[in-house]
């Protein structure tokens, strides 16, 4: 039976990381999944909620549930924070007994972050990728702590042919994105980002892999700012590399 995957593209993914989304389709189809793109998705509303605007989260949440609630199969996002947000918060935002609440409870059982979906649902760690480069991994806070994915993303990287995984010093320390934090306190965010960039540049890696679009935006920008030759890529892009073996 084919696994059906509803693509939850996320607002950052859609607007800034189109290639990551295309690669997500590539990897999922290579693994035999049937992808669908539900029309009408916008943003899950997390930026509002985390900034304290709980009331203004309702409309985006309602829209998301309208779009994904009527789908079948798994809902997969290239982002841990977005997947976790929909899973955890939507049932809290709508009172039990409402239609939205029922949809929220249902979708929560089948919404996943990408590496979580691969390792914990499909139980796959080798996706047939080839990427012969020196690579290091930054552990995004949400993926690490909220989703408890400490080893899984690295397992996926370790099975990529030719890939040399170099440990990143202070791998688990926040890169400084934090959503609105990055613009409310740019000085502190900047210092945290700089520390992360310094760590990345200190180990001779060619690529730094990130699982979260927000972190990717931040770290890629930080590396570009200092003219670093190190490339920042989403985990999915590495997993899509090299084609079928």
């Amino acid at each position, binding site marked *: 039976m084919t696994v059906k995957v509803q693509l939850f593209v996320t607002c950052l993914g859609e607007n800034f990381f189109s290639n990551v989304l295309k690669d997500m389709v590539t990897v999922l189809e290579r693994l035999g999944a049937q992808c669908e793109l539900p029309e009408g998705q916008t943003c899950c509303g997390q930026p509002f909620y985390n900034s304290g*605007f709980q009331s203004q989260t309702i409309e985006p949440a309602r829209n998301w549930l309208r779009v994904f609630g009527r789908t079948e199969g798994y809902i997969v996002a290239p982002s841990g924070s977005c997947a976790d947000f929909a899973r955890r918060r939507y049932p809290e935002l709508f009172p039990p007994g409402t239609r939205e609440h029922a949809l929220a409870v249902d979708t929560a059982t089948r919404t996943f972050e990408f590496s979580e979906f691969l390792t914990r649902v499909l139980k796959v760690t080798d996706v047939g990728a080839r990427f012969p480069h020196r690579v290091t991994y930054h552990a995004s806070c949400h993926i690490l702590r909220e989703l408890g994915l400490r080893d899984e993303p690295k397992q996926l990287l370790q099975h990529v042919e030719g890939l040399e995984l170099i440990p990143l010093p202070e791998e688990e*320390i926040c890169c400084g994105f934090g959503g609105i934090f990055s613009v409310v306190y740019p000085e502190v965010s900047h210092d945290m980002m700089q520390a992360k960039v310094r760590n990345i540049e200190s180990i001779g890696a060619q690529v730094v892999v990130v699982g979260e679009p927000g972190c990717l935006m931040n770290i890629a920008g930080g590396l570009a700012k200092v003219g670093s030759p190190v490339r920042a890529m989403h985990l999915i892009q590495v997993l899509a590399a090299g084609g079928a073996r």
Partner: protein
Amino acid sequence: MSEAPTRIDFRSNVQHVQPQMPAAVQKATMKFLGTRASVVGILGDDHWQALRQAGHDLRLHAINHLDYYLAQLEEQVTKAGGHVHWARDAEEAKRIVLDIAQSHNVKRAVKVKSMATEEIGLNHALIDAGIQTLETDLGEFIVQLAGVGPSHIIVPAVHLTKEGIADLFREKLGIDAPTDPVQLAAIARAKLRQEFLAADMGLSGANFIVAETGTLAIVTNEGNGRMCTTLPPLHVAVVGIDKVVPDWESLNVLLKLLPRSATGQKLSAYTSFITGTRRTNDENGPTEFHLVLLDNGRTRILQDEVTRETLLCIRCGVCLNVCPVYNNVGGHAYGWAYSGPIGAILSPQLLGVEAAGDLPFASSLCGACAEYCPVKIPIPEILIRLRRRVVEGDRVEDPSASPVLRVAAEVGGRTLGLPWLYEFGSQLLKWVQAPWRSGGWLPNLPPPLDRWTMTRPLPAFGADFREWWRNRTPEGRRRNLERKIGLGVLAGGLIALAAWLLTSGKAQRLTRKRSR
């Protein structure tokens, strides 16, 4: 030090952080995290997690039945010969302590480090009334001499160098001090010894107060805690009502969590258990004991079930050690006695969001604090709750943020509820960004987006996934065409409207009206 501030401007504080602060603070935090790792490692992760859960559950049980345990505590302390006072706020607490001191003709007081007394600014009140009040923890003694607040809960003077401290001793104590930490400590030992022996009153807080027997548990390393609570005839303790634990068995868990988390010690050098006054005149110890129970906003924190868990805190400081924000700015940036993640949730609740509304946002929500907290306080959850209080208000307090933000959020929220508007916006941004684009980046954007680009470029807007997806099927290609036509019509309509406004002079008339 640490009088209640009327408004904490976190960003401004950050911009004024002393250059040596981050490095000094990180030296301390790294060291404590290292020693913590080894003593926690000895216990094994399973045992440690069980202890954390136990610590959480027993502290929550105490907080959820606080009225009962406070009443029991009062009864027990009184039975043991102590006096219990209740202070609704900082002013009342200070008045009570001052009354006790003055009625006993106290001239010299020695003090053990206590966050509660920092919070209410007790030292100033006593000193202003002519009572010499000396901090006796070495770090607190030093920052008191320097006239500043502590920069870290456990090592308050970590931001000062040994040279700076030697200068301080020279200037304030008139002693020719060498720049050697061991000798500086010896100078402090000799000076404070005289004070301990001569003091009329010992002041302390408590790490825990045990309801079962009315006992104070005080965790220290230097011996000043013992000095202050054994030598003077009068002992006054100021303790927040949230420090109460039900029984001694609770300490079995908490004393395994606190020292390991705070300093990486299995137990601190001296843990004192004090119940009331000395039992007989043949023993050492004070003949009179007063316990001042402090509210100062804690009862308001109880009102919200989620934020209530703030009161579980055992003041170990590990959240500071592991917080990337704290490690980059140090303690003073948080503007009050409490800093780091605990400061970010406690200060806004004790001071109100009007004064401390900046602090819940002083976090990237990375969650490291919650991972390390020995009593499992859900700090990021509480931060988000408090952010909501700042911008929307809740049952406990009215919002303090500008209503303009709410309007902006409303517009944003509604846009995200309208898929066609969102899609249109995504496509529009791709066109509109052209003047600022440089390769795949937008390095310099106008305000308010410059808050991002001032530190790093923004990636260029490039929403083309939906189009790519639709192009994979004939039906999709047709829809793409329909959409393009639709968007074209919409864009064309907007351009026509703008052109009409400009040429018809309506826009000129509008601008003329405004400038009059």
